């Protein structure tokens, strides 16, 4: 257990005070529901961009990616370099004009404008459920970690962090959440950067790290470069610790899951929708691409350093943390590294960065939940025409409800050790088919509401059937799959996830096309501003500086990520 001193507590207290202070400062500018849910569409691009990045930096991200860095090495960067950047560029250049230009308040509302009420309702319900579960599991992970590391009571830490997030969102709505996400972003960078520097110094620099990772790879029966090169061992599933091959990786992660998450998840899109103009909205994900592509060096590298140090434990005196059953507990890699390298003061800063990541992820979920609940469930299904003040009030009630449901989910997660698996399944079942719906909806005018709805339903069903008929190696039929029959064995859970997404997306795509062709086409005049073919092209205003041009920024981001892939090939 880590022993904290007064200076560490003072760092915690300072952070909490400023986070609440931002909420108080923003409060007086919240007058309408548009201010509360969409920040009055007044955010500069750089703030919305950093918030876009930070809302994705939840507990699973920081703890989980460091854990994956230790388990799989630099190949974990696929979740960033092909699993995020191309989708973020696609969102900015091709999809943002429709999201922002349609003046929809949410992703489900865009679906209503483009398709019909039933498609919006389906997406709103599944999204609301996903956000609450995701937020609850993040909270559970945080409570567990603080209990294990600092001996804090699980209930007290969950309620303290939930209470602070609740207060600052109640006060300032999305504006408060976005401002705090920017603050949390810088805190995470400053909290983890010294960890990487000290760790690299300890392991003998970059060369020492490479040598250590080669020892790890060889000791586990892989080629020496399996931990230190991202593509070289992707030729077959047995050649790398992830158990995936290049096609499943590129199609499953790089296309379906990545585009499904980054281009359709309202949690992220909401930050761009809050931007002050169309140009700013398009630049929001593009600004986020730069920290996103560099974050592997901040989050994955500590995990790689830890496993390299552990491979030479006789010299380094470092051993990876273990679970009670004797298996390696990769989730504790980051906290263990903080305890190893940081003296008092810096330790407070590192732990505050960890808590900030939990809180920014939770705030992202809660603000997305209150918007979708109020605009896409309460307004159309409960009280259709009420005053703006009433919907603002309902947004605040939904914030309280969202936080309470998240806390309840945290307790459910603490009682069932497989709820994380359920969440992963829900994501694969919901996001993958949704991307097919959006792709066809935005770029094929013949696509209609019946096609979209049945495409979504059948895609979700296909994901469930594929999951029920396949099983990852070394697991038993049940939550991990094979609950109908075992027709196919995958070498890893990751490979199964990627292929579940591919099946779901393909089914949704085909069914949407077939049903749309069998039913009447939508009225073309209603598609202006909602689809590529029916909307006049966005002309970039003349005289814009290079850094204000979305297409140029997108090309630069893609070139940079290509160079990174080459450098670590």
């Amino acid at each position, binding site marked *: 257990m880590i022993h904290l*001193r007064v*200076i560490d507590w*003072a*760092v915690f207290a*300072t*952070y909490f005070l*400023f986070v609440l*202070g*931002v909420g108080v*400062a*923003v409060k007086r*500018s919240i007058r309408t529901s548009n201010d509360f849910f969409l920040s*009055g569409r*007044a*955010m*500069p691009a750089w*703030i919305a961009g950093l918030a876009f990045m930070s809302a994705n930096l939840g507990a699973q991200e920081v703890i989980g990616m460091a854990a994956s860095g230790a388990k799989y090495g630099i190949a974990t960067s696929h979740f960033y370099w092909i699993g995020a950047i191309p989708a973020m560029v696609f969102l900015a250049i091709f999809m943002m004009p429709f999201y922002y230009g349609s003046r929809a308040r949410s992703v489900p509302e865009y679906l209503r404008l483009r398709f019909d009420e039933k498609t919006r309702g389906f997406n709103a319900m599944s999204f609301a459920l996903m956000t609450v579960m995701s937020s609850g599991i993040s909270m559970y992970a945080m409570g567990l970690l603080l209990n294990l590391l600092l001996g804090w009571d699980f209930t007290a830490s969950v309620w303290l962090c939930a209470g602070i997030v609740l207060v600052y969102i109640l006060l300032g709505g999305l*504006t408060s959440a976005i*401002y705090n996400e*920017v*603050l949390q972003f*810088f805190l995470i960078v*400053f909290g983890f950067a*010294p960890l990487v520097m*000290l760790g690299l110094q*300890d392991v003998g620099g970059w060369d020492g790290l490479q040598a250590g990772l080669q020892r790890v790879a060889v000791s586990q029966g892989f080629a020496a470069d399996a931990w230190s090169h991202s593509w070289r061992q992707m030729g077959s599933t047995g050649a790398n610790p992830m158990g995936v091959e290049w096609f499943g990786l590129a199609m499953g992660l790089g296309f379906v899951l990545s585009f499904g998450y980054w281009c359709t998840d309202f949690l992220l899109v909401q930050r761009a929708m809050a931007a*002050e103009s169309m140009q700013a909205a398009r630049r929001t994900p593009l600004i986020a691409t730069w920290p996103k592509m560099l974050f592997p060096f901040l989050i994955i590298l500590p995990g790689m350093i830890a496993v390299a140090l552990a491979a030479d434990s006789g010299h380094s005196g470092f051993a990876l943390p273990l679970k009670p059953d004797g298996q390696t507990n990769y989730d504790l890699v980051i906290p263990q590294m903080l305890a*190893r*390298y*940081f*003296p*008092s*003061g*810096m330790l407070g*800063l590192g732990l505050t960065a960890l808590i900030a990541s939990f809180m920014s992820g939770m705030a992202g979920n809660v603000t997305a939940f209150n918007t979708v609940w109020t605009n896409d469930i309460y307004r159309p299904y409960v009280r259709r025409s009420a005053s703006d003040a009433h919907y603002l009030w309902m947004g605040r009630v939904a914030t309280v409800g969202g936080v309470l449901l998240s806390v309840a989910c945290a307790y459910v997660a603490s009682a069932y050790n497989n709820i994380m698996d359920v969440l992963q399944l829900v994501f694969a079942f919901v996001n993958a088919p949704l991307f097919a719906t959006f792709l066809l909806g935005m770029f094929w005018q013949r696509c209609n509401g019946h096609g979209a709805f049945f495409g979504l339903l059948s895609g979700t069903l296909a994901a469930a059937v594929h999951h029920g008929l396949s099983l990852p190696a070394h697991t038993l039929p049940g939550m991990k799959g094979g609950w109908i029959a075992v027709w196919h064995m995958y070498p890893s859970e990751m490979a199964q996830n990627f292929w579940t997404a591919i099946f779901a997306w393909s089914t949704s795509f085909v069914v949407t096309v077939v049903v749309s062709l069998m039913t009447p086409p939508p009225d073309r005049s209603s598609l202006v501003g909602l689809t590529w073919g029916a909307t006049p092209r966005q002309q970039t205003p003349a005289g814009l500086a290079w850094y204000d041009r979305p297409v140029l920024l997108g090309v630069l981001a893609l070139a940079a990520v290509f160079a990174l892939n080459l450098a670590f090939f």
Partner: protein
Amino acid sequence: MHFDIRLPIGTMFSLLGLMLVGYAIGGDPAATHVLAPRAIDAGWGAVMFIFGGLLLVLARRHRRAQHAR
């Protein structure tokens, strides 16, 4: 923009930086870490102080430019 977010972020980082530097100079010597001496606190605290100060300067310049307009 509702208010300049660089003001609270700059203030917080300046304050945290000062706290770390102050602790490194006058804190409990028994708290010294084996692998990371307290000079880390001082060095990184200074970096955070400079970063916070930079944000405050940028926010101030932005406000002046707005007043001038």
